[in-house]
């Protein structure tokens, strides 16, 4: 119970920090503005204007959510070290893993709140444009939330041992690769060489499969989805993020704060 309370204390404080930070409001404003511009973009086409509107909207939500996840996620630990607030925190009866987990949960909660706000903007714009909204849209938004859970964990892992600049680069690169990892496996599967097949399969297992979280096409085109299309990616996100956080904690526990 005490451990949970300590983690929640750190998480609550992280949310409070984010809520009082004007930069995040600015980013949120731009995200909502971009969702709104979907209306303009959709008028450029005579066909499938609703699909274009929702494609732009989902892209805006995903890109801004991931950008905030990367850049705020990287700064989560680095800012604490740089400003030396970590000295006071870690001298308290809290383990480094609890601290890291609290920071993670705090940022994740903040991001989910932002995705919810962007989602409301998306629904409002779709409603004004007369585009249909259904449970698939909610599922697609939920999976953006699951995707950022993986991205924040990766950002924390890199920020546990390298500079913010490198950590941002590594995380952004892994996000891009994560969206291509299925293609990599498919490409390898077509190879005649068994070793290439095995290597690409291994890489696919190790790299995040972020393509699993993209239901944009289903939502924008109204293609029905099964429960497993949501449940499996959510379980995958939980498992992958847990493994990455364990690795981040292991590194963080061994770090000297000079």
């Amino acid at each position, binding site marked *: 119970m005490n451990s949970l309370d300590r983690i929640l204390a750190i998480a609550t404080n992280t949310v*409070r920090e984010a809520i009082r930070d004007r930069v995040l409001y600015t980013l949120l404003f731009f995200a909502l503005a971009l969702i709104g511009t979907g209306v303009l973009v959709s008028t450029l086409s005579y066909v499938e204007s609703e699909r274009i509107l929702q494609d732009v909207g989902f892209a805006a939500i995903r890109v801004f959510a991931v950008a905030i996840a990367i850049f705020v996620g990287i700064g989560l630990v680095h800012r604490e070290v740089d400003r030396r607030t970590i000295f006071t925190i870690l*001298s*308290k009866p809290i*383990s480094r893993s609890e601290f890291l987990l609290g920071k993670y949960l705090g940022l994740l909660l903040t991001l989910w709140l932002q995705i919810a706000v962007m989602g409301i903007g998306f629904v409002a714009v779709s409603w004004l444009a007369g585009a249909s909204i259904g449970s698939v849209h909610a599922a697609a938004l939920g999976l953006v939330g699951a995707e950022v859970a993986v991205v924040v964990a990766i950002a924390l892992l890199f920020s546990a041992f390298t500079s913010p600049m490198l950590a941002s680069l590594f995380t952004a690169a892994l996000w891009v690769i994560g969206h291509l990892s299925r293609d990599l496996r498919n490409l390898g599967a077509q190879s005649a060489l068994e070793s290439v097949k095995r290597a690409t399969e291994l890489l696919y297992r190790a790299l995040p499969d972020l393509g699993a979280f993209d239901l944009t096409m289903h939502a924008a085109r109204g293609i029905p989805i099964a429960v497993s299309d949501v449940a499996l990616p959510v379980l995958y996100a939980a498992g992958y993020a847990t493994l990455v956080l364990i690795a981040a904690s292991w590194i963080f526990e061994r770090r000297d704060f000079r």
Partner: protein
Amino acid sequence: MSDRDTVVSVEGLVKDYRSGFGLRAKRVLSGVSFSVREGEIFGFVGPNGAGKTTTLKVLMGLIRADAGRATVLGHDVRETEYRRQIGFLPEAPYFYDYLSGREFLRFYARVCGVSRSDRTRRVDTLLEWVGLAQAAEARLRTYSKGMLQRIGIAQALVHDPKVVFLDEPMSGLDPIGRKEIRDLIVRLQSEGKTVFMNTHILSDVEMLCHRVAIIVQGEVRYEGDPHAVLGDDERGAEIVLNGVSPAFWESLETRFESGVRGVGDRIEVLLPHKLVDDVIGEAFLAGAHVVSVTPRRATLEDLFLTTVEQGARR
């Protein structure tokens, strides 16, 4: 002193800082050893870069020592749970400036496991105690340096610890701020807490501390009473003479070199205590007049400088 009285025990701490892919190592602690007794104010002093903050960070579990052992209240410093019994104020602290003073203390109280029912009472008491009750709702970014230092001490005490570690608590404060912090430290000790203080402000140490350890180049060179004067041989005196002849002046200069200064026939001589009687006798024979003889009290600064110089000669 029995082991039961020992609150902080440090034995042979060694720490190397590595740079350049870990190939180059710089030794910052070379076998640091000392102990702190229950209920005392202990001063850990040394020149910049001597290893004071590194030692303190090892004690707080922020840095892992390469060798040696450090315990606080009998617990290995790498443990987490025992930290419920210690408080820490880092050097030039920066706190979450988006929080108000009250929010800040409530946050740390929660992290330290202070129960929800006790939290409000404890935070109110501490705000009153450090004189910040009026500024409790103001954000920390509006606090002065002295106020930040006081709220920092309050966070170190929020869980009512037995031992309090302060890293340069008076650094950068104006005389009023320093006095306020000094008063708080004395009050802490009077309430039965053990205070460990890292500092390089010797006058504060002389005023506050029961015992000190002087660290030089990563080694503790002195541990004991800061008010203890140097040995008899090193204790000195200052003699002021009038009507000194040039020949006697030259004789004194030959023997005491830089300890002799004066204008006209008036001279001041700094000399070892044991030679005072001889020089007074000589002055009488040389026709000089003894104006005053002042024993020179060895200060902590003397002790500090002597220790640092000895360390540098090694």
